[in-house]
């Protein structure tokens, strides 16, 4: 599998004049991104190009991790003929951070068509990342044809129901939710009553001061319902989190960075490592947005999240692949 993948990437199978080397080369000189850290609740933001000037001490918080999203392995259309290359570029970016993040969160659409080889390729690429732990939630592209059976087999060890779970890291409580199954005609993402009940029980006994990070594929806030960018029963889920001082919600799906603060909750969507999608309502449909190759990397991204224990919100800032 690895050998085959390498071979594919080194040749111009799309006959568009862009082989992997050329593609990475044209991305290499593009702009810059940002890295964020909170100290005592105060956010500091740094350009990724300045990371070399910063010592690990300067970047340190109580906890840091990286969010990546929407790898769409298997996608090969003009919007990005080399999604493996851009995922690798994201991994290189992660590995280039002076202080290694604790782990990686992948907020879904790992694959494009739920094919085993697509998942295999992503697994293989992420093996090269310095953080060894990767936590996943499924996107709708990961549960095609089998209602998520394959996803559960691959990534759902120790999870409940359709793959939801929680874990604690250095005092921060992380909750991975599944909102891409049993979608109803005309509707949005759905969590469902079984998962909501589980969530209520999961957070019931936590101290109010516990920082909460919830991650799911489709946004848990109403980004643009006309394009299905929202979750039917997210208000119910968020009602269980009202008592907490700091709640951060991380989503993917919309292939662009958006942020919103509502009371104690900071909502955040990450860019895709594969291809960008248009801003809400700015196109006929939410299909892949074609941008010139030299600009592609600046619209693809990874998210560094740095958290400090205490009542403060987590700081989240996206850095582009450029």
């Amino acid at each position, binding site marked *: 599998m690895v050998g085959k993948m390498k071979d594919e990437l080194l040749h111009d199978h799309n006959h568009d004049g862009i082989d992997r080397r050329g593609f990475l080369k044209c991305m290499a000189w593009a702009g810059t991104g940002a890295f964020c850290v909170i100290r005592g609740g105060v956010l500091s933001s740094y350009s990724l190009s300045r990371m070399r000037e910063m010592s690990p001490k300067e970047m340190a918080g109580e906890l840091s991790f990286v969010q990546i999203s929407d790898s769409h392995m298997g996608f090969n*259309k003009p919007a990005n003929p080399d999604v493996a290359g851009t995922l690798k570029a994201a991994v290189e970016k992660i590995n280039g951070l002076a202080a290694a993040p604790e782990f990686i969160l992948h907020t879904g659409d790992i694959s494009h*068509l739920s094919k085993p080889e697509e998942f295999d390729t992503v697994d293989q690429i992420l093996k090269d990342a310095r953080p060894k732990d990767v936590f996943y939630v499924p996107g*709708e*592209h990961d549960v095609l044809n089998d209602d998520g059976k394959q996803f559960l087999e691959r990534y759902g060890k120790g999870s409940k129901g359709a793959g939801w779970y929680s874990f604690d890291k250095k005092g921060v409580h992380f909750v991975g939710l599944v909102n891409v199954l049993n*979608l109803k005609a*005309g509707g949005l993402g759905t969590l469902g009553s079984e998962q909501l009940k589980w969530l209520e029980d999961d957070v019931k006994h936590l101290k109010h001061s516990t920082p909460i990070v919830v991650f799911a594929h489709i946004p848990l806030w109403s980004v643009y319902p006309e394009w*299905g960018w929202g979750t039917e029963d997210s208000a119910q889920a968020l009602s269980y989190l009202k008592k907490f001082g700091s709640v951060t919600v991380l989503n993917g799906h919309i292939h662009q960075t958006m942020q919103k603060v509502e009371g104690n909750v900071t909502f955040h969507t990450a860019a895709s490592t594969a291809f960008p999608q248009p801003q809400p309502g700015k196109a006929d*449909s939410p299909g892949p947005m074609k941008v010139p190759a030299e600009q592609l990397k600046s619209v693809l991204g990874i998210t560094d999240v740095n958290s400090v224990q205490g009542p403060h919100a987590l700081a989240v800032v996206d850095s582009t692949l450029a």
Partner: protein
Amino acid sequence: MRRSVFTAVLGVTTLLGIVALVASPRYSAAAQQKSEATEVKIDNFSFGPAALTVPVGTTVTWTNRDDIPHTVVSTDGAFKSKVLDTDDKFSFTFSKAGTYPYFCSIHPKMTAKVIVQ
């Protein structure tokens, strides 16, 4: 003199117009469309036509022309496609009259229906 020529030209033009309208191929095609259109195209995250009327026994074929995969799933379980990648097709033969609402189970905002008469 000039005025009567103008009137005559106008009269002939109008007459031609009426003849053209009655004999228009577009006009007659529209009348037959109900029984012949058995193709549904998926473009820009929508099914076209959104409502398709066909006689009993018709086989309807869906073609995904988007860069993103879609599915064709009947709301009441009458039919369900596998995931359709770009240019993939799905066909279903309607043997019973009725209205069949359907949607894309990946992008549920995409809804449409087939009316079988």
